[in-house]
């Protein structure tokens, strides 16, 4: 699953995201990292397990989103 979270650009990291989302260190895909999706809004995406997505702190995340399969046309 993908979770979007607002982070301070100077401190954008998977650990900062995990803290803000109320998740454990191992709930976040650290290899994937944080991806800035809207730099002007300081909005980032992290990848988490499905189980972790259900435990995301509601006031910490902008949203929890699907990670569907993509294929070539």
């Amino acid at each position: 699953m993908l979770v979007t979270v607002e982070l301070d650009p100077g401190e954008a990291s998977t650990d900062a995201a995990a803290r803000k989302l109320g998740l454990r260190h191992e709930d976040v895909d650290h290899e994937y990292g944080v991806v800035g999706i809207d730099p002007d809004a300081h909005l980032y995406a992290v990848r988490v397990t499905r189980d972790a997505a259900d435990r995301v702190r509601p006031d910490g995340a902008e949203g929890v989103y699907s990670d569907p399969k993509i294929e070539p046309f």
Partner: protein
Amino acid sequence: MRAAGAERFAEEPRGIEESFTMAADVPFSIDASYDPVQLPAPLQPEGVMRLALDQPLEFSFEPALSTYVVRGTIPDADAPQTAMTLAATHPDIVGVYSDPVIEPTLTCGDSPPQGDADDVARLLSAPALAEAGLDGSGVRVAVVDSGINVEFLRSRGRSPTLDAAASWAPPRVPTAAGEHPVAHGSMCAFDVGIAAPNATLLDFAILAGATSIAGALSDAVAAYGRLLGLLRDEQPALPALVVTNSWGVFDPGTDFAVGSPSNYTDNPRHPFNVIVASLEAAGADILFAAGNCGVECPDGRCRFASRPITGANSHPKVLSIGGVDVAGERVGYSSQGPGRLASQKPDVCAYTHFAGSGVKPADTGTSAACPVAAGLVAAVRTKHSRQALPPQNLRSLVQRTAHDSGGVGFDFDYGWGVVDTDTLLAALP
């Protein structure tokens, strides 16, 4: 009709109304604009009791032996009875037959290639582009796909430039940029080069995998994050970045339901749809294939019951590319609109289903059409920077100058029409 009536037609075929009188109560309207067509008489071979089309036949063109086809109309109501009455009431009528609608056969997935890359180059006015110095030089084209194989492209006569340092693949991908297995991505890279042979390729192998060519949308998010960094961080600023995407979601079962806040296909707030908007705002020209779920002959993987142009493939900030063959006819698998994020999709169509890269016998799908269009965009960007001509303005020009096909104006089969290089060049500032 029999020859008795036919002789009159042979002498004066335009006088059919006078030659062919009907009983007043038989509702048959003859089409005087349709010249009677002589059907030569099959000669029954000796010893053969019953004529059949699968046996050798000889034919006689003797008017006395021929029959003639005329065209007319009878009312739909009681048509079978009327047809029987016609045959019974006029001695010269041999038979009454239907005249069904015929339509051209659409190119589908298993159709042989229609034309080749040289035909596409001609249709794209590639020589005119080259003469104008519009060859993609200095323009980066990110092929977000299964990965590029540069040696393969060279074996096909291309001289690609690859920026390996700016390329990326997820950690699971074992091969390096430009060295990926020859597959879908190499086809896309080849097709970019039809109009933009000197573009610099960026290899974003998000669909590469050990066992299948597929991926997860989160890898596309990561890829776009890197592309966004290129545009925002690199100094001096890139003159142009074109991003071509020949992939999408086939199965809504891998997504949350429409209406769920977690959904992707219909949700502008999904992080991938957000980052597409961010990348476009930063100055990238983004193109997505419309998909291969056209109603006439959809790909077997299509699972959307309707509106198969979904998610970023239907994003308002991208060009959604449908497919036409080299005759300009929409291929039967090219997805039709409306789109889900933006209704007026596809935007335009470009060429597909031609003998091109050699990865397979034909470069097919809207997968091929998208990089063909991306190459044209890259060619234009050679001398028209994103600063001077913002992506939104270029999209509008591509739409406005497309050759209108299908219905008048926009339609959900062809969008605004088929990309038209000559008209586009004339409209550039």
